[in-house]
């Protein structure tokens, strides 16, 4: 074994070892402190809600901005909970929960400018929220009425992409186009630790590096790719892969909204300056199942979730807001009321979502038309029409 690979193994052991220590020690708090102490993890707000400094990344937010981030996270979580409930009630066929990843998504999403472009996977509900996409639009594909119910260009938020990692290439190509246009917009591609194993993600890294594309790769390492742990995806911390492709990688505490905002903002600015891509690994945790079809009790321990609950992104910001006097009781009460309203709205909209017209099967397959589609549309229409008399009786 080479010196280099030995070092890599040690690093892997250390990060996974942290978790083992945590479960063995039975003290979630102690484990948290140990995780936070990892030198490679950029953190500005500890799990206990303490503001800490980082030599490279800093952020100065006023009370209103801090409350705004908190509001975003609370409402995203409420939306997500509502969607999960709707799936349980049979209103959605499937739901991919973001529970636990609010800070990674809101922090990075609020770092974006309007003219930036987002390429999400299928769990970026809170990023969509930051982009101003009507959250109920996200539910169409999970209810089965469309494959993505929004115009990507109206909010610069591309459609959800289910085949893992495909969108990282689209993001890179789009960023190459941005650079060709001489614009100073940036592009951000979201993907997970599972997708990091895909060829497309690695090809995206190659293209982005070679063309110096203004793209930020935002990997939410939520520790699990359905039932496969991160150890089944990589032997080195994911952020370190960037170096091999020729651009910087940084690991940020993905449950720290301030750090996610600061690190993403810095990477986007770097892209705007023409300095090329950055890989951000947001070290976080998927508290819920992969999707509502999945059963995490078959592959992971309750203790692990409990350990991560102690690092909850929303709780830590709440502690900070309260301790520093950035928000009062009235703010939290109003937000609770707003959450209720959002939940009610989501329920109503989902239940009222119409099944598309049957003929929609043939819509938008081609821009310039296609003889076979026209022929089959006509056949289908005639077939449907043949039932009309029967239905009327």
């Amino acid at each position, binding site marked *: 074994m080479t010196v280099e690979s030995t070092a890599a193994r040690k690093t892997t052991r250390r990060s996974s070892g942290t978790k083992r220590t945590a479960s063995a020690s039975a003290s979630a708090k102690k484990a948290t402190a140990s995780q936070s102490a990892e030198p490679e993890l950029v953190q500005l707000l500890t799990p206990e809600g303490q503001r800490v400094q980082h030599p490279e990344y800093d952020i100065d937010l006023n009370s209103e901005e801090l409350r705004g981030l908190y509001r975003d996270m609370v409402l995203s979580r409420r939306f997500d909970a509502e969607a999960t409930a709707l799936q349980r009630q049979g209103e959605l066929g499937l739901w991919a929960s973001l529970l636990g990843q609010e800070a990674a998504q809101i922090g990075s999403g609020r770092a974006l400018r309007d003219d930036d472009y987002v390429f999400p996977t299928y769990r970026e509900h809170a990023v969509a929220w930051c982009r101003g996409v009507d959250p109920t639009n996200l539910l169409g594909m999970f209810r089965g009425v469309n494959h993505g119910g929004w*115009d990507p260009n109206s909010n610069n938020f591309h459609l959800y992409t289910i085949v893992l990692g*495909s969108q990282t290439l*689209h993001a890179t190509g789009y960023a*190459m186009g941005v650079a060709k246009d001489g614009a100073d917009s940036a592009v951000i591609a979201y993907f997970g630790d599972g997708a990091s194993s895909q060829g497309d993600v690695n090809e995206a890294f190659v293209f982005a590096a070679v063309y110096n594309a203004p793209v930020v790769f935002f990997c939410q390492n939520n520790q699990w790719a359905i039932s496969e742990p991160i150890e089944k995806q990589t032997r080195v911390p994911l952020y370190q892969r960037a170096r091999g492709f020729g651009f910087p990688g940084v690991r940020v505490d993905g449950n720290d909204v301030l750090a996610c905002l600061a690190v993403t903002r810095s990477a986007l600015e770097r892209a705007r300056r023409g300095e090329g891509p950055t890989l951000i690994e947001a070290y976080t945790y998927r508290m819920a199942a992969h999707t509502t079809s999945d059963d995490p009790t078959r592959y992971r321990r309750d203790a692990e979730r409990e350990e991560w609950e102690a690092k909850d992104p929303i709780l830590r910001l709440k502690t900070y807001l309260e301790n520093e006097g950035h928000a009062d009781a009235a703010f939290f009460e109003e937000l609770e009321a707003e959450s209720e309203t959002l939940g009610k709205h989501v329920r109503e909209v989902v239940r009222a979502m119409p099944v598309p017209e049957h003929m929609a099967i043939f819509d938008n397959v081609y821009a310039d038309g*296609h003889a*076979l589609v026209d022929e089959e549309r006509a056949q289908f229409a005639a077939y449907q029409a043949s039932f009309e008399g029967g239905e009327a009786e």
Partner: protein
Amino acid sequence: MAVQKLPLAKALNESLRKALETDPKVLVMGLDVGKLGGVFRITDGLQKDFGEDRVIDTPLAESGIVGTAIGLALRGYRPVVEIQFDGFVFPAYDQIVSQLAKMRARSLGTVKMPIVIRIPYGGGIGAVEHHSESPESLFAHVAGLKVVTPANPSDAYWMLQQAIQSDDPVVFFEPKRRYWDKGEVDVEAIPGELHKARVAREGTDLTLLAYGPMVKTCLEAAAAAAEEGKSIEVVDLRSISPLDFDTIQASVEKTRRLVVVHEAPVFFGSGAEIAARITERCFYHLEAPVLRVGGYHAPYPPARLEEEYLPGLDRVLDAVDRSLAF
């Protein structure tokens, strides 16, 4: 001069040049397309004249080439992507089939995908494996894609520009063993429709239906059959998706016999689709079942055996005889 005699490869080169001149959003991308001018020299001289920003040498990663082209199209560009050889398209197959083909429908028509994927295809040049395949039906099967293939320099020139102007993704199969065949190209002509078949030779006894590299073979077969007193009509399909069944039907109603010829394996190939549909349309006109001539259900063989595998004059004429014997 409007009419020039050009090899098919040069016609494609002129077509790309015209497209790059006409629309600043057109990009040419792929492996070796820049300084080298492509392994078949289809992009020869284009980077010199249009620069590295328009004629882009890419990393050696087919999924990356198509995937980034999708992103560029989302940004408003019209990428023309070169896949170096037929058998190399499969690393990009997921991006083409799962992403490119479906993007428009998924976005409810709000985005367009004006991407052309050029693929030199087919055998007959003595190449090593993965360099001689005919995967056209794998793409024709996918809704959202269009699939075309020219058989002569004039079509090569015009069909490529029409494909580039289309807002739909077009897989553009180039018959590589016909790259060096010369033909007249009228650069000021009004071109025919991209997805319309063409009667390449009139006849009354039987229709030979072919596309791409097999059109020439079928024309030669028809000429040989004429010496035996048989009048063979040859139809050049030009477009595989959509298929111009009206032109095929008109020809079959005239000749009452149809033989479909392609290099790709016959099993589940484009000939199967044509045979099924023409049987539906022309059941009472047909004097014989629709016959097919093509590749076998075996990997494309080593070059020393490819003449046995590929439909040649004799195999086509044998099928003609079998059809006429019914």
